[in-house]
């Protein structure tokens, strides 16, 4: 199944949840914010939110800035 992750296409397993994907990517939940199809995803939903074909996912975090 293919989604768009941070602007690039990515193959993921069927039934993969956001929490699962973050774990696979070795990204700590508390350090990021996730946007699914232009809607911000509350952290408590990560576990139940199952990804679908064509989803557009943005995973962002804080970096140094002025």
């Amino acid at each position, binding site marked *: 199944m293919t989604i768009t*992750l*941070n*602007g*690039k296409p*990515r193959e993921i397993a069927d039934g993969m949840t956001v929490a699962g994907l973050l774990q696979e*990517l*070795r*990204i*700590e939940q*508390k*350090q*990021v*914010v996730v*946007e699914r199809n232009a809607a*911000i995803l*509350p952290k408590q939903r990560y576990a139940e939110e199952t990804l679908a074909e064509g989803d557009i996912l*943005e*995973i*962002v*975090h*804080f*970096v*140094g*800035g*002025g």
Partner: protein
Amino acid sequence: MDKLVIAGREFTSRLMVGTGKFSSNAAMVAAMEGSATEIVTVALRRVDIDNPGDSMLAHIDRSRYLLLPNTSGARDAEEAVRLARLARAAGCEPWVKLEVTPDPYYLLPDPIETLKAAEILVKDGFVVLPYINADPVLAKRLQEAGTATVMPLGSPIGTNKGVRTRDSIAIIIEQAIIPVVVDAGLGAPSHAAEAMEMGADAVLVNTALAVADEPGRMGAAFRKGVEAGREAFLAGLGAPSERAEASSPLTGFLHE
């Protein structure tokens, strides 16, 4: 020194610090500590999927510093609003340094989109600190729209040119009832002191600290510069004059 109050919240320091462009997290933290700042700005970016690395947040003591997310990268109001909301969702308090810079070269702010975004974010409950050109009329309109401060630029970001917009900033300060924070272009403590002497309520510095040979020491230098300028403003500065005036008495000379 007297307190700085933004949106009802008190700050002892009048120096905000940006966290960009530092050679290391250690250098960044040294600058923050040296400056005694209480407000630090951060940016939002995509995680590098192939190499998430660790978060810079791990190095910032949230009990000591208020995190002020900026909307850098936003080219219009919509993108700015989106970034502000993502930052809030990340667990930050609803404060945002609003930046809308369509021009990728000089990174100057767009007055139209900035006002539009400010109106949306204020309604949405954000404490909005907009980064603007030194435009007194725009500053007034943002104040009327309910922003918590205005942040006029002293000179283009990263140029270290100091307060090149002196005349306009003086008018903005004169007309503002919200705090005026001079942002961008302050390359030396004397620049920060000058802004404060004019009556600015605070300044924001980043590049000057990040490029210094010793960021921690430069942070301390800016802290003193800001305090010097504020103290001088409160102590009542004399006006410049064309006519020279002796500091020693003009009578009692031996040759009289």
